[in-house]
């Protein structure tokens, strides 16, 4: 275990600060290039002879494609090709496998199943000509009735979306119950849960709709595909959160050996789950480059991004709790209809069609539970990514954190008190949950009590009572969440059969600086800084002298990438383990140089010292030099190591959040007066970066709770696909955040770290809803559906007649 700032002695802390090691808020190594306009994002890449691709997209949500006429487009000067499904068929690339075991049309094959679906790609000399030519491609459609409401997907008369699956009663995850049914996924003890409900003194039930939203990173998705006909090599620069897996997929699809495929994720302008999948744009750009022998760039515009690549959520959940009269929960039951769109391209580990939704028992000691998720097709874009969260964890946490409030209201128990009564206690860790997880560590009561004290919880409740007397609307929301991140143990998790390990390769150079190459890829998380800090603390090499490289499959070791808060839990662990391998070799070299036995040496940050002999020591710099010229007999030269780390378990970060809102009873506007976020992510590597990530996650959570929704009309037309309609908070709307922390290290992680960036998104969303609903709790309101826009909140106010009250 690495010492944390809390446990270090003064000397070690001074030395750690000097090296920029674990626990230091050192400035980021990536910033100098970003603040000088020298980042290298995919659209910055310009190759000689590069062409541009642009899509012809479907105006209809559901239609047959009767004909496509390319003639006028091809006649436009500067147009090099127009590619349709017919062109891809001979290559067998008109359909592609999805991460979820389904298939997806790369270009519409005889029919379109969602609005803006890719129908053809125009390849032209520049982006203007390509855009012009998309207007000249003539597509004749025959409209079909669209299916928009997932709750009607399995009606007897529902339009059938997937003609290609006709007669298939088995899907990738078992039996299909209807032409529009994808899977049923069940977990827990159904009979035991039903029995617990039958005999329970108190039960509550609520329908919770989690709207379809989109991660909307500021940079959209895109790629530059470049096939070298002479060498037979394919290089693709791509905004990918998982470049190594993409290389495997591209190799499998194209038939090119994996060694001839190079995927490079350059700087990425935010991902948040949007950049995990493989999209038609990548596939068609690659095909176009191979066929035309020139580099082809494809970059989404914002409307394409919001309409087609990687929505999140769209979970329609019925939650139920059973409890005794004191509010002690005895059982949880959940039924979900999950809208997966027209193709099941959900990004989950293979065996988890509903992701890690079974974390839905939360931070509470719930003895019996059962959850069932049914995935269905609708005429909407495919996706189902984890938007700044671990697979479906946001949905799970929303469910349990909402339901416990509903239960508290029913019993008239304070919402903090009911949590304290139900928490898993510190002594219960490692804690086996009713739905099969083993929580690694936590101290939930301490976290909540710290927050309650910091905000004067009792005082806030008194103020609320007074305001209610005056007819004012004030809400206090609490959320005490537990996340499950760091996918994952190979025994549980794989993507397309590849186990979800991650990797690090470290080389220490003769003069003592080092390079580390990782299987993960930063999209703003600051990996170049934090991994270097881990190495600094493990090897005593200043983080300034550790270069971290990621994203190029030709140089980096194979890894599963960055999403689901897995970089620190898995990649960070690999880093520490690789560094420790180097340290063990360094110990042998030091013993040789000092002519003592290895057992006579003590490690002190940056050097090995002979026990009891002051001054007899060798620094890492001296050892590094010796590794290339003065080694023990028989030892191979060099000082490097590689680690492929398969974590023994997930990590379980947690937190306690509290939100205070004031609601205008005439306009429905919600003002977030205060938001206090306490996070426990175990060992803290760089507190400055952690706090920055928490601010960002909270703001994204605020966006989801208060305004984001991809809205569809009855015809399946998407109504909110530009930044005019889709809510992204500006500096004006974004609340001020107060942050705090406790440190409960993960017992199984080499440095005790758990991952943090997604917790604030996962934890804040139910906290906002809980605060808004709490403002109306005295009027008997138990739930309000997101997003809590002024209009939506006003509708509740108006229904209750509060806007016209004196």
């Amino acid at each position, binding site marked *: 275990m690495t010492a944390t700032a809390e446990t270090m002695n003064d000397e070690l802390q001074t030395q750690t600060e000097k090296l920029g090691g674990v626990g230091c808020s050192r400035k980021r190594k990536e910033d100098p290039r970003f603040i*000088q306009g020298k*980042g290298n994002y995919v659209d910055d890449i310009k190759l000689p002879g590069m062409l541009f691709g642009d899509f012809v997209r479907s105006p209809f949500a559901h239609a047959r494609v009767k004909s496509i006429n390319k003639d006028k487009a091809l006649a436009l000067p500067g147009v090099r090709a127009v590619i349709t499904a017919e062109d891809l068929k001979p290559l067998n690339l008109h359909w592609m496998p999805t991460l979820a075991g389904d298939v997806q049309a790369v270009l519409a094959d005889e029919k379109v199943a969602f609005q803006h679906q890719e129908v053809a790609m125009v390849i032209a000399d520049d982006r203007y000509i390509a855009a012009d030519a998309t207007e000249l491609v003539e597509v004749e459609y025959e409209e079909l009735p669209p299916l928009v409401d997932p709750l009607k997907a399995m009606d007897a008369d529902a339009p059938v979306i997937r003609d290609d699956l006709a007669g298939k009663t088995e899907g990738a995850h078992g039996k299909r119950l209807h032409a529009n049914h994808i899977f049923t996924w069940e977990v827990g003890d159904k009979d035991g849960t039903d029995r617990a409900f039958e005999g329970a003194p108190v039960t509550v039930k609520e329908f919770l709709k989690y709207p379809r939203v989109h991660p909307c990173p500021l940079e959209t998705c895109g790629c530059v595909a470049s096939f070298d006909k002479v060498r037979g090599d394919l290089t693709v620069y791509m905004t990918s959160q998982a470049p190594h897996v993409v290389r495997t997929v591209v190799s499998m699809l194209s038939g090119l050996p994996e060694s001839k495929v190079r995927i490079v994720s350059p700087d990425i302008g935010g991902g948040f789950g949007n950049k995990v999948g493989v999209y038609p744009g990548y596939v068609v750009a690659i095909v176009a480059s191979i066929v035309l022998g020139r580099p082809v760039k494809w970059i989404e515009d914002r409307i394409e991004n919001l309409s087609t690549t990687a929505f999140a959520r769209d979970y329609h959940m019925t939650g139920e709790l059973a409890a005794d009269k004191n509010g002690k929960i005895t059982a949880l039951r959940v039924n979900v209809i999950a809208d997966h769109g027209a193709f099941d391209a959900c990004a989950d580990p293979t065996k988890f069609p509903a992701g890690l939704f079974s974390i839905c028992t939360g931070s509470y000691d719930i003895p019996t539970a059962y959850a069932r998720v049914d995935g269905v097709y609708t005429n909407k874009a495919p996706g189902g990514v984890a938007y700044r969260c671990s697979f479906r964890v946001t949905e799970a946490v929303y469910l349990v954190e909402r339901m416990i409030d509903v239960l508290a209201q029913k019993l008239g128990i304070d919402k903090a008190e009911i949590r304290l009564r139900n928490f898993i206690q510190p002594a219960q860790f490692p804690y086996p949950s009713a739905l099969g997880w083993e929580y690694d560590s936590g101290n939930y009561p301490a976290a909540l009590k710290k927050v309650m004290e910091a905000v004067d919880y009792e005082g806030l409740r008194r103020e609320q009572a007074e305001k209610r007397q005056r007819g004012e609307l004030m809400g206090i929301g609490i959320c005490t969440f537990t996340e499950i991140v760091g996918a994952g143990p190979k025994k549980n998790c794989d993507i397309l059969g590849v186990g979800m390990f991650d990797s690090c390769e470290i080389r220490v150079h003769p003069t003592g600086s080092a390079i580390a190459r990782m299987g993960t890829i930063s999209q*703003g998380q600051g990996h170049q800084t934090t991994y270097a800090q881990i190495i600094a603390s493990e090897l005593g090499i200043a983080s300034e002298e550790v270069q971290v490289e990621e994203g190029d499959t030709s140089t980096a070791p194979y890894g599963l990438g960055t999403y689901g808060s897995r970089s620190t839990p898995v990649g960070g662990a690999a880093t520490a383990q690789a560094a420790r391998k180097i340290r063990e070799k360094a110990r042998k070299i030091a013993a040789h140089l000092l002519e003592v036995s290895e057992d006579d040496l003590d490690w002190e940050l940056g050097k090995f010292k002979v026990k009891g002999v002051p001054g007899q020591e060798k620094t890492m710099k001296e050892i590094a030099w010796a590794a290339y010229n003065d080694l023990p007999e028989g030892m191979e030269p060099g000082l490097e190591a590689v680690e492929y780390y398969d974590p023994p378990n997930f990590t379980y970060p947690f937190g306690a959040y509290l939100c205070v809102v004031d609601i205008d009873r005439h306009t429905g506007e919600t003002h977030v007066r205060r938001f206090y976020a306490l996070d426990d992510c175990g060992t803290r590597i760089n507190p400055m970066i952690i706090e920055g990530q928490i601010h960002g996650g909270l703001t994204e959570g605020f966006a989801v709770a208060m305004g984001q929704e991809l809205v569809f009309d009855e015809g399946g037309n998407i109504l909110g696909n530009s930044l005019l309609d889709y809510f992204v908070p*500006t500096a004006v709307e974004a609340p001020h955040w107060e942050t705090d922390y406790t440190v409960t290290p993960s017992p199984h992680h080499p440095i005790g770290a758990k991952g943090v960036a997604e917790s604030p998104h996962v934890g804040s969303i139910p906290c906002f809803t809980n605060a808004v609903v709490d403002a109306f709790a005295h009027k008997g309101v138990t739930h309000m559906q997101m997003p809590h826009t002024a209009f939506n909140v006003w509708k509740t106010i108006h229904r209750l007649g509060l806007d016209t009250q004196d």
Partner: protein
Amino acid sequence: MAKQQISFTLNGEAVDALVEPRHLLIHVLREALGQTGSHIGCETSHCGACTVDLNGRSVKSCTVLAVQADGGEVLTVEGLAKNGELHPVQEGFMQEHGLQCGFCTPGMMVRAYRFLQDNPDPTEAQIRAGMSGNLCRCTGYQNIVKAVMYAAKKLREQQPA
């Protein structure tokens, strides 16, 4: 489409470009002139990633035609640092951790550069309002506000008394 010659000052240096009348300034800056620091986030003037300074005003270069810059003065992120020294705005963003993925950062900083000339001693609320044309998905703005405050203070200190 017929092209025309335009000339303008980019980060203090005279530049020429041959453009179509419909070409957007952001495309000309990035593709013809190789200045890729300014980014494209939406092409609808909402996100501000493409913000540059044109004739003393912040503009979103995704909705400015390149021909509108003819004869003008343009400043982009590449022109903020002078003689190898970071501009106080750049320094502020680094010191106060005002960036994460870095995609919004160039536009955000160029906007801050102009905002602080218009309002050298702003309050937090004024900064939030003044920067509200630039979206950031990573930081939640709190550290961006601090970065602009840092730059404001440093710029004021640099002013001759």
